């Protein structure tokens, strides 16, 4: 305990109203995704018409496909590159390490819009047609720095002698990498991958500036559709909320269940 509670009701009230503040808009959005009419304020009976419209809309389904595929591919690439770079950095001398980190952290320190226009200028200057490929490259570009920053601290805690010992015993550097170092930092790699995936899935600003050829992700689609009242956005959002909630609950609950199993076994 950091300190005794001032008044009994204060914590409950404060935390409760904060949570209410956070969730009320989301709940309203969910409720009205089932509205029988197009209104976002007048309830006209329960209906799943907006969900039907969502799944029938070619644009929306295409946007979902784009978002998911870019998120998956960019996560894979950025996690891989981020991991090997972090490992390489942990073995490099201080000057190289600090310089690389300084440059690598620029997309993190810069406001998103600056990174976005930088990339847009890059593609324009080299006459690269904007579209799926440029969006993917941009996503990889902004994800790798985060992966590196997530894994680097984990590497600091490693015992450097183990990898060296493995190589003394005849392992090739690649084997030492894959079989000794990587297993030890797996939690960091997973965390990094998770961050990269979320960054990519939710991204708007950077995607908005570097896309073209009619390629849209979910965020861009919501942005363009928000001009008119469109309960299909509510439907899409509700599905996203449900998926995220389930995912987060699983991620947090499963370790606890496994802990209980282990305790039970012991």
């Amino acid at each position, binding site marked *: 305990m950091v300190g005794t509670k001032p008044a009994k009701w204060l914590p409950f009230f404060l935390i409760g109203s904060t949570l209410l503040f956070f969730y009320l808009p989301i709940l309203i959005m969910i409720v009205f995704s089932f509205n029988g009419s197009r209104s976002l304020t007048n309830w006209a009976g329960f209906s799943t018409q907006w969900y039907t419209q969502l799944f029938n809309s070619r644009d929306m389904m295409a946007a979902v496909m784009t978002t998911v595929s870019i998120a998956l591919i960019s996560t894979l690439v950025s996690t891989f590159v981020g991991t090997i770079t972090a490992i390489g950095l942990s073995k490099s001398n201080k000057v190289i390490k600090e310089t690389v980190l300084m440059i690598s952290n620029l997309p993190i320190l810069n406001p998103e819009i600056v990174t976005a226009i*930088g990339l847009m200028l890059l593609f324009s200057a080299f006459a690269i047609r904007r579209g799926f490929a440029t969006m993917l490259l941009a996503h990889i570009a902004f994800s790798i720095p985060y992966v590196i920053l997530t894994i680097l601290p984990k590497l600091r805690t490693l015992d450097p002698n183990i990898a060296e010992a493995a190589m003394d015993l005849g392992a090739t550097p690649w084997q030492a990498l894959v079989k000794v170092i990587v297993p030890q930092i797996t939690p960091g790699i997973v965390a990094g991958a998770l961050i990269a995936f979320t960054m990519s899935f939710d991204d708007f600003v950077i995607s908005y500036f570097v896309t073209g050829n009619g390629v849209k992700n979910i965020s861009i689609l919501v942005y363009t559709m928000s001009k008119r009242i469109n309960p299909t*956005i509510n439907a899409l959002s509700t599905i996203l909320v449900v998926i995220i909630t389930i995912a987060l609950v699983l991620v947090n609950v499963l370790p606890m269940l496994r802990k209980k199993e282990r305790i039970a076994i012991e």
Partner: protein
Amino acid sequence: MKAFRSLVKPYLFWMAVFIVIPMLLIVLYAFTQQGNDVMTFTFTIDNFVKFFDPIFLKVLGKSLQIAFVTTLVSIILGYPVAYFVANTKEKTQTLLILLITIPMWINMLVRTYSWISILSDNGFLNAILKAMGLSPVSLMYTDFAVSLGMVYNFMPFMILSIYTVLAKMDKALIAASYDLGANRLQTFLRIVLPLSVPGIIAGITLVFLPAVSTFVIPKFLGGGNYMLIGNLIENQFITVGEWNFGSAISLIMAMVIMGSMLLTRRLDRNVEESDKGVNNGNGGVMYGRH
């Protein structure tokens, strides 16, 4: 060991192309003028001079003002929440943190969009007010709406930053303080608060930076003429086509932000502590987005 060093090489090349060159291009565009679709390399500071019009400076001022208010509100409302959450039982803490985190993972556009239907003149809030017999309020397209949207989107980052530091605080220090005769308030002001400053600093970084540069929230909740610096930049690049002026504005904004960040860093004497605040654990790093 030396073998592993070369693993950095692929990324070195990548960085040069995708991080260094874009920044150089922004600087290049900022200091040049476009001459009829062909980029003529006439160096000029005209783009910067253009920005020093009272109207544009006011845009920058307003952005800083709203970002400051958002950050302040986030601290004032967020610190108590973080404090009380850190004081609950461990199981409750996990649950509460989970509840606070879930909205953060939802797309920012979706979260902001949901407020449009609430704050609209014929939206949810006014429908409730009318049902209660009260007169409707016109909240949409106001400073209040934009600030509300920003607080809604960014306060969770502040809460989590402060919570992380509070939760890891050495409880022995608190106990020692009581043993030496200090009361609750003294302990808080002299021990807890100072030690939690790195968390506040980290939170400020995570709230102020995106708040200054966002353009979606003002666009959705402020209307087409509500221009913050992010909107101005977006407008110059997407609609007007003045990439040179837009780049200059971006540089100015980046400088201002960097200046503010350095200022906040000075508040924290121990720089290493604040690094820990930004980089701690798994989740700490990801929050510097949107």
